Every structure is written in structure tokens, then in C-alpha cells.
């Protein structure tokens, strides 16, 4: 980042004052900021009618009752594989986006980026754009500076409280919790969660900003490892921009710079131009004219990470593309083509240096690797959708009791026991009827019930022990193990499911 000359092993953070910029990518980022924040703040307040005994909140993580509600979908703890599946999809989705577009997550959708963007927006409203903020930073403390700082911090704090506050509404009925929260009736964990999220939002968005990305976040390291030469990333066409220079003196400066070789670094091991120093005095041939970069520092001034994209690809770059907007604006003004800073892949460099035209974006995005990731991602997605829509509304598991495998009754009959779990996902209580197929010769009885019907309360799992008895001398009684199946019917909806299990006889002794 900043080249140190102090010799210390530790350095204070260099303040960054990103300048306002407008353009395609800035507009896109405003839209993403608005939509993602709206989703985050509004979602818990959407209502969804599920019947009298179930919550009417569209999205609710009910930890106390082990339920997750998402509009028409209801997930119980034993269906946690849905969450695992979504996590797998999120992982593969990261592969897709990273291999195609590099750190696009960091630049556009990461909460750290979105909230920092919002905080910078507030900062700009209150303290003015870059130059005003730099002046204010350098100015001694005065009433005006204190007023601006306090106003800014207060607005930040309000955003931070709202951020932490919105989080808790995903875990309880939002209107009730808000009322309890304001009247100090809410659980302690609600207040502590809001407090922690408020403090982290305030500090991370207001003061840590790029430090989080550079020093705390593992993504930059992971994502760098997932990129390949065809991955799009934000880059500077130094073969077009160099040698850079300002205004009337561009030529001379360029020539001096080259002759002196003082800057060094990654800065353009561009086209070697022998005898450039001498050329400074002489009329410059076409090939040695200065590049398109006028060294206006617009790209550096807008960068929220405080880096110079012209130094090449670097870990601190979150590819937010604001430097593209800034540079395009300048290129238009000086009558040069856009795209001195652009979305480029590493493999574009030799090609463009050789004089070929830039390749269209789609050739970078749609290639074997990304399509393969997309296919894998889609397989998981379709699998989850399939699992979601074919799962029966009545959910039953039958587990044979293995200790002991069977019981001999006084008349010599052999009895097996089964634990049957009946899950009623409906908003009202439902009867469940358990029967064995006709002609099996087996008798079924329920522990603690006279018939073969049980009532399961609304939104509950009921556990019932069921006995199956084979008469003395019958085939299942003397065999080792024979198949048995239970038909479980829910008469109200007419839904029915058959669950197979095993009957152990004396042959297993």
C-alpha cells in the first residue's frame, strides 16, 4: 500500500478521502446498495399468513422452537440438509463468480463494502467532497469541525443502531419485538446483539474501512488463489497509458522519468525506448509520444482503498470499478477512447500489446471453467428444489427398537416395538391413522392408545411406540427377519405414506 520510509515495523493508518464519482459502475453500485440494504431492513416486516398457531412473519428463524420459515417454505431441524445444500451452492457460486469476475463480491455486494459506501456517502453529505474533507482533516479543532464531526458520527451511529436492530427481527416476531425492545421488555440477548452489531458497524464502516479488507478478511487470499489468467479484474492498460505525464510538459517529464529510472517498481516495464533522454530535446517520433495517462490522479482520488491501480493488480484492490468511472470521465474530456482503466484479464495484456483489439467481455465470462461451475451449481440447485417439492406433507420416520430385538409373550407370540415419529407441519392438530397391510397376519397395537389413531398437535412432532405381534409359530415369528410396512394416513388431507421396516423373529436369536 503506502511505501514506508519511516523504518518502523508498524504504521498508522493513512486517512483516505474518496472523491465523488459518477458513471456506469457507480450507478450500478448505488442500485446494488439500495436493493441489498432494502432487502436487509424490510424483509423481517413482511407478513405471511400461515394459520392461527404459526407465526405470520414471512422470514423467521425461530431458534427457540427449532423452525425456519421462509414464505411458503417451512424447514424443521431434521431437514437441515437444505441449509447444507444452500451453503454448498453459495460455495460453488463463489467459485463461479471468482473465476469469471474475480473479486466482484468484494467490490459490489460485501456488507463491508456496502456499509462503508453508505458511511462515505453520509460523510460526503456532511463534510463535503474530497478536498473539503482533506482541509477539515488538516484544520485545527474548532467549533465548526466539532459540529461536523459530531453530526457525522451521530448519523453513522443511527445507521449502526438500525443495522444491529434489523438483525434481531429475523429471530422473533418483528412488531412484538420492536415494542418489547422500546419498552425494555426484550430479552437481554436482543440488547447485547444490537449493541455488538452497532459497535462493529460504527467502527468497521466509519473508521476501519479498508483495514478490514486488507488485514482482517480472508477472502482476498482465498480469491486470489481461485483466479486464473482469464479472470476479469480491474486493470490499467499501461501499454496505452505510459509514459504518463501532465499537460504541456508531458513529453519532457516522460523523457526525464525514463532516463532517470528513479520510479522503478511495477510501473510499466513497457516498451523499451532506447535513447529516450536524448529524444527529449529532439522532436519526438510518433512511437515515443506520451501515453494516454495524463497523471491526473482521478483514479487514485476516488479509490476507497487508497491505492493506485496503475501499480498493477494488488491484494488491496476490491475491484469496485470506481477508478474505471473516474478515468473514463477524464478520457472523454481529453478526447481519448474510454477504457484506459477497464475490466481486463491477465491474458489480454500480451494480446493487446501485440496490437489486437480488446476481446469482448463474454469471452472471459463464458468459458469451460465457469460453465462447468455453473453446471455443478445448477445440479445442486435443482436437487434442492426437487427435494423441496417432493417431500411429503406428512413426515414420518419409523425406527425399530433394537434393545431387545423382540419380546416373547406368554402365549409364545413374538412382539417387536417401533418408535414412530409423526410430524404435523399444519397449523392445526391432525389425526394420524397407522395400519399394517391387510393379510400380513401381524397385529398392531399402540402404547397408551386403544385404537390405531393418534392426534398430533399443530406444528409438533409426536413420538409413539407401536407394537407389532406375530402369533406363535407364524412365519415372521420364527424367521430371522422379515419385512414389514406401515401405512400412515392423515384423513383430513387424505395424505398417505407407506414406511417400510424390519420385523425380527426368533430366528435372529
Amino acid at each position, binding site marked *: *500500500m503506502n*511505501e*514506508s*520510509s*519511516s*523504518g*518502523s*515495523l*508498524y*504504521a*498508522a*493508518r493513512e486517512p483516505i478521502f474518496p472523491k465523488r464519482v459518477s458513471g456506469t459502475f457507480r450507478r450500478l453500485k448505488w442500485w446494488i446498495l439500495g436493493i441489498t440494504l432494502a432487502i436487509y431492513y424490510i424483509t423481517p416486516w413482511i407478513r405471511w399468513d400461515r394459520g392461527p398457531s404459526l407465526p405470520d412473519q414471512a422470514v423467521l428463524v425461530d431458534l427457540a422452537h427449532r423452525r425456519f420459515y421462509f414464505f411458503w417454505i417451512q424447514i424443521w431441524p431434521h431437514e437441515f440438509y437444505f441449509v447444507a445444500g444452500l451453503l454448498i451452492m453459495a460455495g460453488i457460486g463463489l467459485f463461479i463468480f471468482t473465476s469469471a469476475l474475480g473479486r466482484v463480491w468484494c467490490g459490489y455486494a460485501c456488507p463491508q463494502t456496502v456499509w462503508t459506501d453508505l458511511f462515505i456517502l453520509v460523510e460526503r453529505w456532511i463534510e463535503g467532497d474530497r478536498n473539503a474533507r482533506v482541509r477539515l482533516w488538516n484544520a485545527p479543532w474548532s467549533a465548526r469541525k466539532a459540529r461536523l464531526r459530531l453530526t457525522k458520527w451521530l448519523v453513522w451511529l443511527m445507521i449502526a443502531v438500525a443495522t444491529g436492530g434489523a438483525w434481531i427481527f429475523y429471530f422473533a416476531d418483528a412488531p412484538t419485538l420492536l415494542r418489547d425492545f422500546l419498552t425494555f421488555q426484550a430479552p437481554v440477548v436482543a440488547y447485547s446483539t444490537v449493541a455488538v452489531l452497532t459497535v462493529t458497524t460504527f467502527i468497521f464502516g466509519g473508521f476501519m474501512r479498508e*483495514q478490514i479488507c486488507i*488485514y482482517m478478511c480472508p477472502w482476498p487470499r482465498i480469491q486470489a488463489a481461485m483466479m486464473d489468467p482469464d479472470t476479469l479484474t480491474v486493470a490499467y492498460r499501461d501499454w496505452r497509458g505510459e509514459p504518463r505525464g501532465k499537460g504541456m510538459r508531458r513529453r519532457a517529464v516522460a523523457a526525464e522519468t525514463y532516463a532517470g529510472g528513479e*520510479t*522503478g*517498481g*511495477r510501473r510499466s516495464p513497457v516498451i523499451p525506448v532506447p535513447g529516450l533522454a536524448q529524444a527529449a530535446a529532439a522532436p519526438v517520433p510518433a512511437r515515443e509520444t506520451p501515453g494516454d495517462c495524463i497523471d491526473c490522479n482521478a483514479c487514485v482520488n476516488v479509490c476507497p482503498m487508497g491505492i493506485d491501480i496503475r501499480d498493477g493488480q494488488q491484494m488491496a484492490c476490491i475491484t469496485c470499478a470506481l477508478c474505471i468511472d473516474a478515468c473514463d470521465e477524464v478520457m472523454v474530456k481529453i478526447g481519448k477512447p474510454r477504457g484506459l482503466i477497464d475490466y481486463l484479464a491477465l491474458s489480454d495484456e500480451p494480446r493487446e500489446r501485440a496490437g489486437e483489439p480488446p476481446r469482448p467481455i463474454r469471452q472471459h465470462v463464458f468459458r469451460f471453467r465457469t460453465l462447468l461451475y455453473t453446471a455443478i451449481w445448477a445440479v445442486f440447485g435443482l436437487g434442492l428444489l426437487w427435494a423441496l417439492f417432493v417431500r411429503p406433507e406428512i413426515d414420518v420416520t419409523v425406527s425399530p*427398537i*433394537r*434393545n*431387545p430385538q423382540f*419380546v*416373547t*409373550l*406368554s*402365549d*409364545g407370540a413374538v*412382539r417387536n*416395538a417401533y418408535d414412530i415419529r409423526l410430524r404435523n407441519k399444519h397449523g392445526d392438530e391432525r389425526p394420524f391413522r397407522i395400519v399394517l397391510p391387510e393379510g400380513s397376519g401381524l397385529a398392531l397395537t399402540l*402404547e*397408551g392408545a386403544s385404537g390405531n389413531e393418534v392426534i398430533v398437535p399443530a406444528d409438533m412432532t409426536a413420538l409413539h*411406540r407401536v*407394537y407389532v405381534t406375530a402369533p*406363535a409359530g407364524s412365519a415372521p415369528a420364527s424367521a430371522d427377519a422379515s419385512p414389514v410396512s406401515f401405512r400412515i394416513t392423515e384423513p383430513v388431507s387424505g395424505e398417505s405414506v407407506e414406511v417400510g421396516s424390519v420385523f425380527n423373529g426368533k430366528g435372529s436369536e
Partner: protein
Amino acid sequence: MDDKETRDPVTGVDTTGHEWDGIKELNNPMPRWWLWTLYGTIVWGIGYAIAYPAWPLVQGATSGLLGYSTRGEVAAEIAAVDARNAEVSATLAAADLATLPVDDPAYQFGVSGGAAVFRANCSQCHGAGAAGGVGYPNLLDDSWLWGGTLDDIEYTVRHGIRNEIDADARFSQMPAFGEMLSKPEIAEIAEHVLALSGQEHDAAKAEAGATLFADNCASCHGEAGTGDREQGAPDLTDAIWLYSGTREAVTETITNARFGVMPAWGPRLSDAEIKAVTLYVHQLGGGE
């Protein structure tokens, strides 16, 4: 160190001055807040070591100013659970089990709690699945030596069987017929017992054994051999055998008798625990 700091020409970054075989160590300085975070964790660590158990001593460790211990935390949690269950536990202890409805919270509490009581106290003999073993009754089947109603089970649990702790323990003693009858006579009775339960037997010997059975055994096991719960005398006609129903085992039982003992749990378990384990055993499949 006298290493001279220099600037690395390739990266434009300062070096620390350290150099090994031409490889220079660059100095990309860490942020200062990071250093302060490290100091912060050290301060926290010192505070933690003072407040919580930390430093090992010859015996044990320093206890910490807050007096915290994981053992104490467990004890507090158990106490909290007991306090939460105190009301339903008292209800259960005072309840008449025979009339307690199955959907009563006290019943549900009893069955769940009884399962825990059973695992801790009863499973050593009766097995974790309550299926018993040779000499230890199976509690799942429909045969009961001393009765299978809630009241019967509760009495058995509370007072035990043939023990010397409780004067009210269930008691009976089968004589060892080896001292009274000859071996052929015992063999004849054994054949009769096998016949009673419908097993393969010698018809002639069983016929002779019938008279001996009526004279020696029927007073407890009944004329028909169906047993007597008042005396804990097993039903000899069914398919269930506490000490196995083979010829050898039956002969052994008649010759030397059996004397199964169960401890009295009244002095060891609370009323609520006894009632809980009674409910649990009763709902295992054999309760009457």
C-alpha cells in the same frame, strides 16, 4: 542491530536491512492498531488469569477471584433444572398413579424421568432395554411374577424382593427338592413341567410326575401350574422362563430351588423417583 535500512529497487519498499544469501527482507509495516490489539489481548489475558482459575499449583490450580468453576456451573444448572421441575415433581409424588391421565404433564414427566432413574438404578440387572436376562425378569413381556399393575410395580420397586433391608419386601422361598425327593422323582416332575408348557416330553414320566407335582408343587404353582402372584410363584404353562425352560434348567430349579433378590428402593429413591420409574416400567409394553 546495525543493519542498514535500504530501499528495494524492484518493489520500491523499504527493507529491514536483513539479508540472507542475497534475499532481502522487505518491510511492509503492519497497521499500528494491530499492534495495539495484540497488547489488548495480553492485558485481557492477565485479567483473565486473575479472575478465572488459571495457574497450576502442586495440588489443583489458582481458583480465580470470581470463584468460577465448571463443576460449580454444572451444579448450578442441575439446581436450576430441579427448581424448574419442583412443582411437577411434587405433583407426581402425591399423585395416584392408577388415575393419572396419560396426557397429564406429571405423567409425561414421570415417564421421561423414570427412564433416567431406570438407566441409573435398574439397568444393571434388568438391562438397558429392560429385557432382563437369566434370573432377571424381562419387564417388557406380559408375564409378571408379583403383578403388573401400577400399584404392584410401585410396591415391588419400593420394598424389593427377598431382601433383608425391608421388612415389607415381597417374600417367598421355594424348597430345594433335592433334599426331599429322589433323582428319578425329580426327573418325573421335570417331564410334567415340560408337558405343562407344551414342550417335547416323555409322556409316561410326565404322567407319573403329575401326582408328585400335585403333592409337592401345586400349593404354590397351582393345580394347573398357572402360578400364584401372591407368592411370586411363576406360571409354568406359558412360554416365558426366568431361568430357562430346558429339561436341564427345570431339573436344576427343582433340585436346588432359586432365590432371586431385588433391593428395596424406598430408602434410596425419592417418592417422585419411585413413581416415575413405576410409570416408565408400566408403559414398556407389559403393564396391566
